[in-house]
């Protein structure tokens, strides 16, 4: 049956090269709307409580936030380089190391983020009873959104790190499933997580730094 369809086979092999990255792009479109709902909530809350957002945002750790932004941008560049090394460039052996470096930077991001969460918890910035900025209207909403946005982003990042590690190992051992088109799709996901953070950075850390 299947063997009797060589033409079919060929056509599907050609199509498969496109499907992985097309599928990932569509998935990322969906992800964009997923974060979009939160951005809409953010837009509402920030336009209604500009002062509260300003004061609350000033309590975030801008140094760590900036450092983390740098880490993600760098890891994205490394992963892009890994994709560029694939194929007939003769630099395939770099791929696992570049993916691994990207994953390492992502892990560093998560570690720093965790440390940030811990200090915010100690400063009483976690919404709920005992919230430090109770008197500032809107500050609690800021931190609700801060934890939701960064938390969801971290979950995505965790998935991304897992993907990079898996493909790093897969490409090193030259596994069949770690095909270039799949590495490319995983890289797309990683860049998307980066893009989300690019927007979170000014929205969460830089609302009011001059006041």
């Amino acid at each position, binding site marked *: *049956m*299947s063997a*009797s*369809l060589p*033409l*079919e086979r060929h*056509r*599907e092999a050609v*199509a498969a090269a*496109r*499907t992985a990255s*097309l*599928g990932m792009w*569509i*998935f990322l*479109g*969906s*992800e*964009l*709307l*997923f*974060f*979009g*709902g*939160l951005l*809409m*909530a953010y837009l*509402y*809350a920030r336009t*209604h*409580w500009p002062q*509260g957002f300003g004061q609350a945002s000033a309590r975030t750790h801008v140094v760590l936030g900036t450092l983390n932004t740098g880490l993600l941008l760098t890891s994205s560049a490394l992963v892009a380089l890994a994709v560029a090394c694939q194929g007939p460039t003769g630099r395939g052996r770099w791929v696992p190391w570049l993916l691994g470096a990207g994953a390492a930077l992502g892990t560093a991001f998560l570690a720093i983020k965790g440390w940030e969460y811990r200090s915010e918890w100690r400063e009483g910035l976690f*919404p*709920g009873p005992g919230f430090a900025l109770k008197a500032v*209207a*809107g500050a*609690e*909403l800021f931190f*609700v*959104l801060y934890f*939701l946005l960064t938390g*969801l982003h971290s979950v995505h990042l965790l998935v991304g790190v897992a993907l990079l590690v898996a493909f790093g190992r897969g490409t090193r051992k030259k596994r069949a499933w770690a095909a270039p088109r799949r590495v490319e799709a995983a890289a797309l996901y990683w860049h998307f997580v980066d893009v989300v953070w690019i927007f979170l950075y000014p929205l969460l850390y830089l609302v009011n730094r001059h006041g």
Partner: protein
Amino acid sequence: MNYLENGHSLRSWLGSTDHKRIAILYALAISAFFFVGGAAATLIRLELATPAGDLVSHDTYNRLFTAHGVIMVWLFLIPSIPSVLGNFLVPLMIGARDLAFPRLNLLSWYLYIAGGLIILAALFLGGVDTGWTFYTPYSTMFSNSWVAVTLAGVFVTGFSSILTGLNFIVTVHTLRVPGLGWFKLPLFVWALYATSIILVLATPVLAITALLVVAERLWQIGVFDPAHGGDPLLFQHLFWFYSHPAVYIMVLPAMGVVSEIVPCFARQRIFGYRFMAYAILAIASIGFLVWGHHMFVSGQSLAASMVFSLLSFLVAIPSAIKVFNWTATLYKGAIHFDAPMLYALGFVGLFTIGGLTGLILASLSLDVHLTDTYFVVSHFHYIMVGGSVMAYFAGLHFWWPKVTGRMYSDTWARIAAVLIFLGFNFTFFPQYLLGVQGMPRRYHAYPPEFQVLNLFSSAGAVVLALGYLLPLAYLGWSLRAGRAAGANPFAATGLEWTTPSPPPTHNFEHLPQAPDEVYGYDPNASLPEPAE
């Protein structure tokens, strides 16, 4: 070897990545959920037969209509045509061997089942009493029921929807047989394609909204909470941004099914094929712009209401075009009244009534009176039950021989079609009148002046329930004793009819040839008599 014989163990089904087998898995699951949701509906109608709330307590009643809504919307209607018929037919119709991501397809089914079981667990553990709309701040602050767990289930099924939609989009783009251009695609494929776009772009917003509600329930503070500077209307905006397009997730595939059946049994090319295809895209895209018409009296601004009302009138145009074109397809045809055709014609009639009453609801000043009354309840049941469910049954009967390889009793199927059509109108038409008189929805007990019409409605529901049980019997019988169907019992066009019934595991023995024209029917050609 056909796909049904390719292994008989449970594992060969539950681990299969064959789109046809996954379609069957979906069919079994949604049928089970349909009867659970239907049982809730039966209890609701029984309770409403008398004005006093004497059958069940108000808390039980509230849990019943919530369970009915949640199950019917997320576990039956949304996966019904796309995941069952779409899964089975899209690869066959475009001449492919499977979907683009067969394993992802199986994962979608498991996600759907996981979400469904979580929802069922919540409903049996204690139920949810918020209504399927989960309006805040009731759902976040006041409801004392299993809101978070139910929403977790909805969240998981949402991912099933997204992955299914993604799969269809990639499949239609990359796996069409050579020579099968976009304007040679059956309208069913067009409809599924447009539906998939909605699934991919709207569902994530529902997922994040569910997450926000759950977070707010746990934290007791959040963006929807008016006690802390949030806005309950923000929830409504987010919720309807998904849930209005969700209506089109339910009805666009139904339109696709009917667009296949009407030309086949009228032996006539579909009228205005291109307009039909464009109308599908127009409905899908304008459908994203009208969500605010659920919020005319919610406290939304006047200007926003005016904009959303205008856009809602506009989305009615492509729907009207479709109705006119189906009607015009009958002109100068040679019309056969087999069971699928009866269901399809029933769809056209009921959808027309549902759509026109939608126009009344889109009118700003009338909506002020009619919203949140039984008029709305009736309107969306005309669209979703009269429309989607009717079309699902039409499709089920049309492609049953293809799926199972066997014929059913056409006589019994026609009886069921008529019974469902009559029972449906009997149940839901009185509800329009109740709405006009001002009976609010979600009332457990109601003033005595509404009793007569409610009694009519409850009586009609008995007929409707009977109509829904009948196919269970004769379709079940057909599985055991139905005569063999042959590849193309209805002499229909479309690539799915060029392969044997049931189709072989890899769909086609030979690479199918793209047809010269889509719906190449000729009313004057004599039909080959199906082999007895």
